């Protein structure tokens, strides 16, 4: 019988590093990290747009009008001679802010409603589901156009309007997960021990529901960016002069025949961003799902 080796003692830092590696290190592949890096770049641009050494996104230089990439301007200039690169960076701000705010609004309100409905059942659940069904009967763009007409076109108003669209989806996800959590033994045990309802909801239900809800968040953010750009394309997102990616594409449409890059560059930027969000969100979701089934 071989002598049992003394188990190596690991420092807490080593333990943590290994845990990190277990969650993130295995099997994500270079594509995942490429997407993460791209998202970080976009987030960085959105955050520091005002301090980055780029030209003024609003300054029309007539001489540069419709100039191609790598000429007077790094990524060319648009129909008014404004620098496309600078506009992209400032436009990222709108996408990122609306993406974060709208998803948070949907997540918090929808999530809370879903958890309450899934936990208490009864009339509240039936009523909520009926209302959600009715909201879902309206095509999202129709609802969004009406909401925007009602609450205006400021950055915050657009975020709230798009966030509202996400309440039904999040409420459904949260409710479904709550329903399965409530059946588990540890919730029964907590009830048997006489824990208060608030305590059960916060300590037992919430931590188990929040993971799938957040995992859904990145994919939702990709969709929010698409929704915002569609709105901007129709000229109903954040008002000019603030550059937005959707607005840039809409403007580039006029120059399709002569200067493709005006529409192409913001389109590619947006496509890469949404693709990255979808990709990272999808990978993280499947990773978390696997972990859950191992438990």
């Amino acid at each position, binding site marked *: 019988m071989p002598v049992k080796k003394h188990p190596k003692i690991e420092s807490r830092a080593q333990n943590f590093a290994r845990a990190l590696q277990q969650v993130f290190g295995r099997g994500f592949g270079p594509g995942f990290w490429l997407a993460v890096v791209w998202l970080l770049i976009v987030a960085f641009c959105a955050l520091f747009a005002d301090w980055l050494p780029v030209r003024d996104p609003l300054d029309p230089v007539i001489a540069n009008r419709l100039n191609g990439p790598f000429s007077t301007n790094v990524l060319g200039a648009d129909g008014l001679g404004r620098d496309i690169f600078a506009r992209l960076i400032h436009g990222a701000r709108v996408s990122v802010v609306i993406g974060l705010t709208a998803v948070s609004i949907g997540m918090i309100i929808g999530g809370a409603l879903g958890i309450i409905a899934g936990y208490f059942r009864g009339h509240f659940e039936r009523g909520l589901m009926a209302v959600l069904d009715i909201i*879902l009967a*309206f*095509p999202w763009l*129709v609802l969004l156009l009406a909401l925007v*007409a009602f609450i205006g076109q400021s950055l915050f108003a657009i975020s709230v309007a798009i966030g509202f669209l996400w309440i039904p989806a999040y409420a459904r996800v949260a409710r479904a997960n709550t329903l399965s959590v409530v059946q588990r033994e540890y919730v029964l045990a907590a009830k048997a021990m006489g824990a208060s309802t608030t305590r059960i909801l916060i300590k037992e239900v919430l931590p188990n529901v929040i993971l799938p809800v957040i995992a859904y968040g990145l994919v939702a953010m990709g969709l929010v960016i*698409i929704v915002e*750009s569609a709105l901007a394309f129709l000229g109903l997102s954040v008002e000019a002069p603030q550059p937005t990616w959707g607005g840039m594409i809409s403007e580039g449409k006029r120059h*399709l025949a002569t200067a493709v890059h005006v529409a192409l560059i913001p389109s590619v930027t947006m496509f890469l961003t949404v693709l990255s969000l979808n990709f990272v969100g999808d990978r993280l979701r499947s990773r978390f799902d696997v972990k859950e089934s191992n438990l």
Partner: protein
Amino acid sequence: MKLLLRKLPWLVGTLLAVSFFTFMLVSLLPGDPAVLILGAGVSPEAIAALRLEMGLDRPLLIRYLDWLGSALTGDLGRSPMTGQLVMDAILARLPVTVQLGLMAIVIALTFAIPLAMLSASFAGSKLDRTISGIGFALMSVPGFMMAIFLILIFAVTLGWFPATGWIPFSVSPLANLRNALLPALSLAMIELALYMRLLRTDLIDTLQQDYITLARAKGMPAWRILTRHALRPSSFSLLTVVGLQLGGVISGAIIVEEIFALPGVGRLLYQSILQRDLLMVQGIVLFIATAYVLVNFLVDLCYSLLDPRVRYAG
């Protein structure tokens, strides 16, 4: 039939709620309709007279019941901006949107089903990963972006299809299809990716069932197993999603009709919103939402036709 009777009250309830929600949504929009029609700078007496004429002085609930009552008889009012009957305006533009939506769904399904079957039967292979990867990328392209690049490639560069315009089917079927193809394609792409992803997952699930193994053991050819045994049980969630995605198709139609300048319901709605033609907006939203609820009700019924378990448990 029994199923139909049992679900009918639910349908009526939903439609009532939808109509009420539509009415409230539009009524709460800022701006006095009377002022919007007459324009600013008109005497208060004239505005008051028009308000009286339009019945705006009555309580909201009475106005709702009144509106609903005439809506039930097919009368959605007359647009104060264009002087056209709302119902006539919708019906005149309906064929365009319906054709567009149907073409998009048909295109999406004709490509999604075989691709999903290919993907699922070679799950995990390079082919599967390529198809899934393309589908994944397609889902990240907004409809308007797809439309612009289809215009760029097929209208501007190649010149095969017109970039804008519409010719009714009754005038020239061929020209009609030529005009409709690009808009329908741009609507179809996202749906295609969505359907394909869903059907692939379901098919992979179904292909692991025992009766598929049995069919394989009997020596049944693979394509026959796929089409005869696997597709039907896998098609339920696809059917549901096609129904639910109708809202997405209509939303897409608003944008696509605007880009391609097609005289459809979506464009009418968008322009009515821009002009604050509230009565028109109200009518169109009610029309679309009702259609959506009815289609999904039918999908629900189809479900029971396709799946004997639902039919007999009924």
